[in-house]
């Protein structure tokens, strides 16, 4: 092969190699699902409490991972359920949060998360009843938690009876078996605060923390607190 031919071959192989690397990196960095931000800063007059309605469904029912457990949130503008886990909230505002929990439960891996922390009064309302500690080794256990570690918030989401006919895919109707958990907390200054579930609910992954526990828009996200 001539020198020119060799040179051409080397350049072509180099470009192919670079292309493969770029493709791999781009594929790796691509998020598992398209994600958005649900904006609650304009859902009420400034200074008034924000009402945030979310639900946890045992299987999302659509998208690339229809069998995965997931949070959903009610968009305050369109009043439609969306699979966003980044919620834009106003700073220095009371957040009244309601979570409809449609998934079954089990004992917590760490019962520490059975204690309600960081909410106003360090308590929650479970189907209208005030609870400050929930023993996950009793009753129907805990299905998931809503926790914002950097704000010290941790709320156990008590599971429903697994032997009932449960909601098959989100969004779920409140006619299906569920627990309604309500609590309030105050946002502080602006910042980006990650939140997550502390129940290793990624079934099938080592220690249960893969899959939906390690993919944005399923069991974790951000509270994007901004000045309104």
């Amino acid at each position, binding site marked *: 092969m001539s020198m020119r031919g060799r040179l051409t071959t080397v350049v072509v192989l180099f470009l192919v190699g670079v292309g493969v690397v770029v493709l791999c990196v781009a594929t790796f960095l691509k998020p598992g699902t398209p994600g958005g931000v649900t904006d609650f800063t304009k859902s009420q007059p400034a200074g008034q409490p924000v009402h945030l309605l979310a639900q946890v469904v045992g299987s999302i029912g659509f998208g690339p991972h229809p069998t995965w457990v997931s949070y959903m949130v009610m968009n305050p503008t369109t009043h439609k359920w969306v699979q966003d886990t980044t919620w834009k909230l106003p700073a220095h505002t009371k957040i009244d949060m309601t979570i409809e929990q449609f998934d079954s439960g089990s004992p917590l891996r760490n*019962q520490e998360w059975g*204690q309600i922390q960081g909410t106003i009064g360090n308590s929650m309302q479970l189907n209208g009843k005030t609870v400050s500690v929930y023993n996950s080794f009793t009753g129907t256990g805990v299905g998931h938690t809503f926790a914002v570690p950097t704000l010290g918030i941790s709320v156990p989401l008590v599971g429903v009876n697994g032997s009932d006919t449960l909601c098959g895919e989100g969004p779920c109707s409140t006619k299906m078996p569920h627990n309604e958990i309500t609590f309030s907390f105050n946002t502080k200054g602006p910042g980006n605060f990650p939140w997550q579930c502390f129940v290793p609910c990624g079934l099938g992954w080592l*220690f249960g923390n893969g899959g939906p526990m390690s993919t944005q828009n399923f069991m974790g996200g951000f509270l994007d607190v901004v000045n309104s």
Partner: protein
Amino acid sequence: MNDEPRHLRRMTIIWLIISVIADVLFWFLLGPHMAPGRLTSTAKADQFDFNFLAVIALPVMIAIWVFMGYSIRTWSAKRAGVPEPVGGEAARSHKGAIVSWMVITTVIVLFLAGFGTVALISDHGSGGGEGPNPIWSPTGATSAETAALTTSDSWSPSSGKVLVVQVIAQQWKFTYRYPAFGGFETTQLMLPTDTSIAFNVTSLDVIHSFWAYQLGVKADANPMLNNVAFTDTQQPGSFVVRCSELCGLWHGAMFDYGKVVSKTAFMTWATNTETANAANTKDLAPFAWTYVPDANGASGGYYIDGGVTPYSKAELYGAKPSS
């Protein structure tokens, strides 16, 4: 008679003067501000060790720089009257210089290895995790650890006892148990001043690493293993705790802040937290060095899992409660 000046003596004098100035300036000006500070005995020892190493290393570095600078200045080919460097006799190596360099650097390295070993032992592991059976324990650590397992542990400002603190890592948060106060668990890490602390670090899932930077403490958190690290707190202050083992999606968010407070303030906090958490503490698993994992996902049972003992058979440090 050779008119050539005594270059080696010149270089030695220059090196000596610069080295003394650099060492003195470093020791008194920079040294007190070097990481990780002086919040604990291990942090203070880390700082001392670093400064000591720097004071030893600076003259070595300066020797090289002086030799290089002097050579460029004195034997540069571009200077008038200086012959071009040539091979032959003038280019031969100097046996004495080579041997001296090897001997001196070897002595320095061996001395520092000895120094590091002594520092590691005298400071009870220098804040590093020593595994489940530490060989460099402070006085009273074994009895405190034994008491922790037998639920007979106690601590008060005047007791002078080692305070046992269990660090439990999980994806993606550290929590802390205080066996001397009923075994309550909390997300806050508070420590009393002037107290020996025995951190018992474990994990409920993957490998994490407990890194309390300003305390000079760093210990891997492994599932099914108790990793013990010691330190002695000295003065009040705040510190940061970070996970230093890449552990998944929220690894970057796995941090929190701790405080070293006065003994009385700690006692007040501990007793208040013990009372506030009492309802949940009774539901926690019995205090143990490790907790049985359930690797398959959501079901709990990480703590008491049927008939499985929560104690790892590998855990030998401290006595186990009788079954």
